[in-house]
């Protein structure tokens, strides 16, 4: 049974904004970390003063903080996932994907601590400043894992591309920095190489078996939210309701769509590809709760026509061009000429 996120309306622009801002924060944070790693290597060339690289690193970190603030603000303001102010301050106990959200809280708190101690470096002293700054090395992988675990776009090519680019950039920066140094720093450099390798190996395995899987949304703890109102269309007359659901594409190209009526929330609609040896048309199945109302063939395409008992159904799927390629969340509309009971 697919768990579907639903609310009284479709996701608002804030939900999309926070996902985009999260990715942007990760990109700028990655740049900050990479610049921090290579500051000592005069990567800007002999002709440019070294302090320019140091200042760039610092300014990018402030930009990352700005984007982080916007990302957190849009998350809290968005009604879709019901993430509250408490949830972004305390890394446990949120209702929406608690572990992965909690990691984001941890990463952002480390980032804030780094920036605050840097602004107050006179008071803080070199030792404490350096310890907190080293924690920044930890905040970045936590942010990556948070992004893959919490975000709804884990399987989207653009996000996979962004994450791959960010991880590669940091690995390359680490390699160039680890390779050079005095003998006395060899243990710490070797340690960094080991940790980085472990992160890539373990993180990669987790990503492949976790967020990149179709059922990650459920495993990550996406809650089923109650709608504001649920109207059961059992009386005469047709209706037209928005649908929300997921599309899953398996290795051989077969598609299975599972959607829920956002108004009459007991209604679920599934569509599956025809069985190649037996059928030629996709099959639609409508259920109210656990009771299957009908299972009938439908016309193929982004708009499906089917007849269930005496009621004609039109199922329109939105944005299927993207969904067909990547799988994941989709929306649609169900129009009927009569009740479904």
């Amino acid at each position, binding site marked *: 049974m697919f768990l579907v996120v639903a609310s009284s309306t479709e996701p608002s622009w804030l939900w999309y904004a926070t996902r985009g801002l999260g990715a942007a924060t990760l990109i700028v944070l990655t740049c900050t970390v990479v610049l921090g790693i290579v500051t000592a290597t005069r990567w800007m060339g002999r002709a440019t003063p070294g302090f320019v690289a140091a200042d760039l690193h610092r300014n990018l970190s402030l930009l990352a903080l700005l984007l982080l603030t916007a990302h957190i603000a849009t998350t809290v303001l968005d009604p879709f996932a019901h993430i509250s102010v408490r949830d972004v301050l305390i890394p446990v106990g949120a209702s929406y994907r608690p572990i992965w959200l909690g990691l984001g809280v941890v990463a952002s708190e480390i980032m804030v601590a780094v920036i605050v101690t840097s602004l107050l*470096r006179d008071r803080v*002293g070199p030792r404490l*400043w350096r310890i907190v700054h080293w924690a920044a090395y930890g905040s970045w992988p936590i942010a990556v894992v948070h992004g893959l675990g919490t975000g709804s776009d884990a399987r989207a090519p653009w996000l996979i591309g962004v994450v791959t680019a960010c991880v590669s950039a940091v690995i390359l920066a680490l390699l160039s920095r680890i390779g050079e140094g005095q003998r006395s720093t060899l243990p710490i450099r070797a340690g960094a190489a080991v940790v980085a390798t472990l992160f890539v190996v373990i993180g990669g395995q987790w990503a492949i078996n976790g967020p990149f899987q179709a059922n990650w949304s459920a495993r990550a703890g996406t809650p089923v939210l109650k709608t504001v109102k649920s109207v059961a269309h059992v009386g005469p007359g047709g209706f037209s309701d928005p649908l929300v659901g997921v599309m899953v594409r398996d290795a051989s190209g077969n598609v299975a769509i599972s959607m829920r009526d956002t108004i009459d929330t007991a209604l679920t609609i599934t569509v599956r590809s025809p069985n190649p040896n037996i059928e030629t048309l996709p099959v639609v199945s409508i259920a109210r709760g656990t009771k299957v109302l009908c299972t009938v063939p439908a016309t193929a395409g982004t708009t499906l026509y089917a007849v269930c008992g005496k009621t004609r159904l039109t199922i329109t799927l939105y944005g299927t061009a993207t969904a067909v390629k990547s799988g994941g969340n989709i929306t649609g509309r169900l129009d009927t000429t009569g009740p479904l009971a």
Partner: protein
Amino acid sequence: MSQARKLLVNPTQCDGYGFCAEIVPELITLDDWGFPIVDSRPISDDGVIGLAKRAVATCPRLALLLEEAEPKQA
């Protein structure tokens, strides 16, 4: 007239990045090994003090200190 300051380096923290010498060459030059030779006499010029503050903020090792100093005798 603002308080005179003096710029000091903690040589045990310093790793020879050299950003300080780029920012405030009025007070810092680099030796043969890239480490700063710091003029620690009292500074009263506000412009130089400003540059010194920037150098203190930019040092990746927090090795520079700007302390209060007795004003230079005329």
